[in-house]
């Protein structure tokens, strides 16, 4: 008898909203502080760095935030991602446990990072941003942002941590393949 080990969702079952845990915490998270005054920061302080729409989202305590349709359309390139039962691992460990994994490696960049890269590129695009800057550790985030920026027509500058730049040369090539304008600056 064949055992179901994958549990695929259809494209129409792609979630329509993101979930904000800030709405359900029994006590609030202490706010970010200005280092000089030690007072809670105000939204205008972040404007040199982030677009207004993401600043508002950062502070929001709305429980469900609608995923914009252009973002859902890009998510649909690779989502919903697989949920798989690891029966072979269970057998190898001789365990009565049932092990399931959510596989985010199914995205074009190979990780979960595009889930936010795509959203951030979209919100920046509609806010009038022309270029995004970022840093990357293993290179997975920089690659994902380069991918998302290419889809929304933004330039992308990536500052890569030196040891990863040396350890993971293919990440730089991924960024260049997608971005054209992505730069790797070893630090």
């Amino acid at each position, binding site marked *: 008898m064949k055992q179901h080990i994958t549990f695929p969702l259809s494209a129409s079952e792609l979630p329509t909203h993101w979930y904000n845990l800030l709405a359900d915490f029994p006590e609030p998270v202490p706010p970010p502080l200005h280092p000089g005054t030690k007072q809670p920061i105000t939204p205008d302080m972040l404007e040199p760095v982030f677009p207004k729409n993401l600043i508002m989202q950062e502070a929001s305590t709305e429980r469900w935030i609608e995923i914009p349709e252009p973002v859902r359309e890009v998510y649909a390139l690779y989502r919903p991602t697989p949920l798989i039962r690891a029966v072979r691992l269970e057998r190898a460990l001789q365990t009565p446990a049932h092990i*399931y994994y959510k596989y985010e490696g199914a995205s074009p960049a190979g990780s979960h990072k595009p889930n936010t890269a795509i959203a951030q590129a979209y919100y920046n695009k509609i806010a009038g941003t022309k270029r995004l800057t970022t840093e990357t550790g293993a290179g997975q985030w920089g690659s994902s942002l380069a991918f998302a920026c290419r889809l929304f027509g933004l330039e992308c500058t990536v500052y890569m941590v030196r040891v990863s730049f040396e350890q993971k040369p293919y990440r730089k090539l991924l960024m260049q393949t997608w971005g054209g304008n992505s730069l790797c600056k070893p630090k």
Partner: protein
Amino acid sequence: MLSQDPNSPGSLGIAISEAIEDAVKSTDAKYSLGSVLNHVCLHQTIIGQEAIKQMEMAGEEPDVIIGCIGGGSNFAGLSFPFIRKKIVEKKPYRVIAVEPTSCPSVTKGELRYDFGDTAEMTPLLMMYTLGHKFMPPRIHAGGLRYHGMAPMVSHCVKLGLMEAVAYPQTKVFEAAVTFARTEGIIPAPEPAHAIKAVIDEAIKCREEGRKRVILFNLSGHGLLDLSAYDSYLSGKMKDVEESN
């Protein structure tokens, strides 16, 4: 930093500062962060929401939910929709975050206000931190080399909604190879940390004779991290403890 120590491996904390400075100086450029912040954790909840529906299809509820943590976003993505059920429906899920012993922000860090970056350009965030001047050792899981932790994830730890464990990289890669040789997928070094915790939980189940349902986030594949596997398989990989 390089003029002081040309062999400095650098860290996410330093690179964040350079990227922010670039955005601040430019009129049409903005900065984008891949983890830590609330809106990033928000976007990642698409993972957990899909997983809830898929576990329903499988006809099982998780007992244990596991993910690796660097800045916290993939862990938040899977766990936050389930943590909502813990809070609202009183579900008895155990939620476990896994980090490297060489960068143990939650298991060895302090919950306090700290800068998100090394050059002190970000606001102060209330989070588990090893201090913003902490230089993580050169482990292969580059995505986990961050001194801090998402404030929302830190808050979950503080409220007792989750727990954290840490493992050294040789044990992590042993687990990664076990997974690759059974399930086929070669994991990225980062989620291999979660796999190590999953295997330990599964072995506990075997020893106790108990079935538990374990759900984890395999947040990425390792096909671009094969140099890490080379290091492990050739016996060169060493465990590195936190340096300061």
